[in-house]
């Protein structure tokens, strides 16, 4: 697949992911719902797995994580936004590591037990790793500093909170694979205008939302 098409795909899926983190994630956080687990198990996994399924291009999810994490920095509301941005970027890297050995045609996932299991594994590892990375990096970047004992005593809580992400991941991957059977194609002449328009719209909504909150 040509490089520009993949690059446009990274911007599109990264923007959609970042948009959902900023708008939906922040709303879930304000409602005191487990935003992190829901966002990872449902949204992050959906965008990363869909892009892997459509483009079959390793490395793309890393770029998407960078785009989504950058967009999250433009919306400094709803929870710890620096932590969220770091976690999103880390999630892209971890997805790449987990899926590194998987075949690009997703042959291993033809059995439902494997697609469910891969969803559980991916969502859980991505969520827990992202959580731990932010618990290390966020204090390190602050004036308080990082203390290992603070992280160690909280590990059971982190491992426990990943259960919801795992369950959602176990539903997400088989659901997306079911959609794969629907043959959706887009003409090349519509591809770039569509990807660019949707990406710009995502960024504009997030920035407008930030400006509205600041001025309210």
């Amino acid at each position: 697949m040509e490089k520009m098409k993949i690059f446009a795909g990274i911007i599109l899926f990264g923007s959609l992911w970042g948009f959902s983190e900023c708008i939906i994630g922040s709303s879930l956080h304000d409602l005191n719902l487990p935003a992190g687990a829901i966002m990872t198990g449902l949204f992050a996994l959906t965008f990363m797995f869909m892009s892997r399924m459509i483009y079959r291009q390793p490395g793309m999810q890393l770029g998407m994580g960078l785009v989504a994490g950058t967009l999250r920095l433009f919306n400094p509301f709803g929870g710890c936004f620096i932590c969220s941005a770091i976690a999103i970027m880390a999630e892209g890297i971890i997805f790449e590591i987990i899926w590194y050995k998987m075949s690009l045609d997703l042959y291993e996932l033809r059995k439902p037990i494997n697609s469910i299991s891969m969803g559980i594994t991916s969502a859980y590892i991505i969520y827990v790793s992202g959580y731990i990375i932010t618990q290390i990096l966020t204090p390190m970047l602050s004036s308080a500093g990082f203390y290992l004992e603070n992280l160690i005593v909280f590990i059971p809580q982190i491992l426990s909170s990943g259960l919801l992400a795992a369950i959602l991941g176990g539903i997400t991957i088989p659901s997306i694979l079911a959609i794969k059977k629907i043959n959706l194609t887009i003409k090349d002449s519509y591809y770039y205008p569509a990807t660019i328009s949707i990406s710009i719209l995502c960024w504009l909504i997030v920035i407008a939302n930030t400006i509205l909150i600041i001025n309210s």
Partner: protein
Amino acid sequence: MGKEKLIPIIALGIILISSVSSVYVYANQVNSDHIDINGTEYTISQIFFICKQKTIESNSELFTGVSLDDLMIKTGISNPEKHEYMIIASDNYQKTVKWENMKNGIITAEGRSIFSDLPKAFRVKNIVKIEVI
């Protein structure tokens, strides 16, 4: 062992680890109306009675509560600037901060720490203990 056999085993292991962790977390949850400050227990109303209140800005929001540095001084911590402070929540979430941070921090009526100079990760909810290190 092939990938196709390994994937369900890893998923099963993950479900097991997260379930055991959930049971552990539930069993070790601390429920207390008091906050243990360096070995002495105080209620939130006692803290609000003995200490001065202040309003700080954190992430474009205003918060009012008891000044954490004043709380340490009023509870008899000697040489407070020479210590670090571990703020512990009922679910074991904890963050260690320096005296400089305590000077920019408050504890709200809901028992939550807020710091004007630290990220939201340092907002410890349902504080049950402040340990002086």
